[in-house]
């Protein structure tokens, strides 16, 4: 079974267990906790410190993209509007120069 299907199966059983507790008034806390442990196992906090920081990666990627795009336009890339910026990217993708 794919990860997505396993996740959906846990989610369905988790919701059923919570609703079952309310509707049938029975204790299903053990089952609920089992599913919660699974959801927690998927938790992967992003790192915002050091050289591999997500913040630095976002900045680096934008700078890199700007440098690449500078070669294809006479205008300053960072001064382009959002609409112009993405229009330029899709134009270059169509021309297969990116």
């Amino acid at each position, binding site marked *: 079974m794919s990860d997505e299907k396993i996740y959906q199966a846990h989610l369905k059983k988790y919701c059923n267990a919570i609703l079952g507790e309310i509707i049938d008034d029975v204790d299903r806390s053990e089952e609920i906790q089992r599913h919660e442990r699974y959801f927690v196992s998927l938790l992967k906090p992003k790192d915002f410190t050091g050289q591999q920081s997500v*913040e630095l990666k976002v900045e680096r990627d934008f700078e890199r993209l700007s440098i690449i795009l500078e070669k294809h336009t006479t205008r300053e890339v*960072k001064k382009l509007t959002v609409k112009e910026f993405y229009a330029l990217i899709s134009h270059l993708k169509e021309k297969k120069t990116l």
Partner: protein
Amino acid sequence: METIKKGQHTITVYDDPECLPVDNYYRFNKYLLLDSSLGSSLEEFSTKHLNSLYVLIQNDKKQEAITQVNNLRQLFFQTINEVNVSQLAFTCLVHSIDGRKVEDYSESGLKAIRDEIGKIGFTQDELKKKQLKYRLTSSLK
């Protein structure tokens, strides 16, 4: 662009991708990312970080717990340096204040804009409402 009036003062804010410079857009998104992951106030020490940390330790996820502690430390330094990323995200969208166009969107420049907006008399709640509106519209466009 939208003009917001407060007493004698006016603030013009970008509200459309047709006029928003892409540099501001990336800064705006970066601060939103920081806000959603690290948080921007002391309350989030508990609601965001300590709760997750507790769960990660309970589940023997050592490496993830270390990352969470590092992020908690990052939020701590942000807070003591008065860096509120949620406010900084909004200031990335400010075009001009009382007709003066904003030119400096560096972190110190954004802090200066934030302070100026604060002096004009915008409360934290008003800014939150405006920011929520721009978050929603930027995700729709």
